[in-house]
């Protein structure tokens, strides 16, 4: 039992260490705490050009490290968020933004959900309408036929007391 729990502790320790090794290592000093907040926000939003689906905060690629360094120095130099994004987009294209600008080829991305939703809503309304009108028609025609049958049956009943 003690041997087993020792194994367990070792295993957990190993896992904990592995976790730390994977994290991004470098840290930056900021002259103002707001800059640090903006650094985190922007490094989450900028996409690493080398790795397909990681932001520069998560990536270990050399280019992501360069871009983090650049981001830090630009923030310290007093650049605005828009200026920084502009700078990155001018070099790496819209690809580097996880939220691409509205307009141009990314227009499709922005508008498609709305258009699809609208199309779906139209389809739903049309289907519901046609169904309910068909149901109404059916109800009326059946009730007319049935009214006759009912009258006939009633007449029969009256004939035979």
């Amino acid at each position, binding site marked *: 039992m003690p041997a087993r729990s020792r194994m367990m502790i070792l295993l957990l320790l190993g896992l904990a260490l592995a976790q730390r090794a994977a994290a991004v290592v470098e840290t930056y000093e900021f002259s103002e705490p707001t800059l640090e907040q903006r650094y985190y926000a922007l490094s989450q939003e900028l996409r690493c*050009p*080398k790795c*397909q689906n990681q932001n520069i905060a998560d990536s270990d690629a*050399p280019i992501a490290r*360069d871009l983090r360094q650049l981001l830090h120095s630009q923030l310290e130099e007093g650049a605005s968020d828009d200026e920084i994004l502009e700078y990155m987009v001018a*070099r*790496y*294209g819209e690809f580097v933004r996880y939220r691409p600008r509205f307009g141009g080829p990314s227009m499709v991305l922005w508008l498609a959900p709305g258009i699809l939703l609208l199309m779906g809503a139209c389809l739903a309304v049309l289907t519901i309408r046609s169904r309910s009108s068909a149901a109404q028609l059916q109800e009326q025609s059946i009730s007319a036929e049935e009214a006759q049958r009912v009258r006939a049956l009633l007449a029969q009943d009256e004939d035979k007391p």
Partner: protein
Amino acid sequence: MASRLKLFVPLFIFAVLALFLFRGLSLDPKEMPSALIGKQVPEFLLPDLVTGENRTREHLLGEVSLINVWATWCPSCLHEHPYLVRLASEGVRIIGLNYKDEDAAALRWLQELGDPYALNIADRQGSLGLDLGVYGAPETYLVDATGVVHYRHAGVVDERVWEQTLRPLYEELQR
């Protein structure tokens, strides 16, 4: 009749979906067009790797050229190098951008493996690389005689890439 046609709606949706997915199979998600296509190569002032002279944008102009981003720390560059030597011997003007490398190691590389470059720009900090939108090595840019970028290939330039993609563009620009 109309309700009969409705039965084909799922088939139609499937066909459209299949078409899109099939197209997706042949798309390369890693392919990222350079933001510089159709634009001028950015201004720079960097030393020549071999002579140490100042190099600027002016030195690239006058001829259709390939700008090849390379480094001694990049294994794919080693793989690519012999083909560049061959292209250079066929008369293609290749300009080297030695990217975030060490001078000594880079010079040794050129001595041992041959020098296909018309000139080599030493970009120690990766500043020109950044302005070009380089995200790794090797990368190769096709630039016309006036310094406008026409194509960027990220990865190794081999016979297939040259013959199928770069050469047609290169020859078109030379006309």
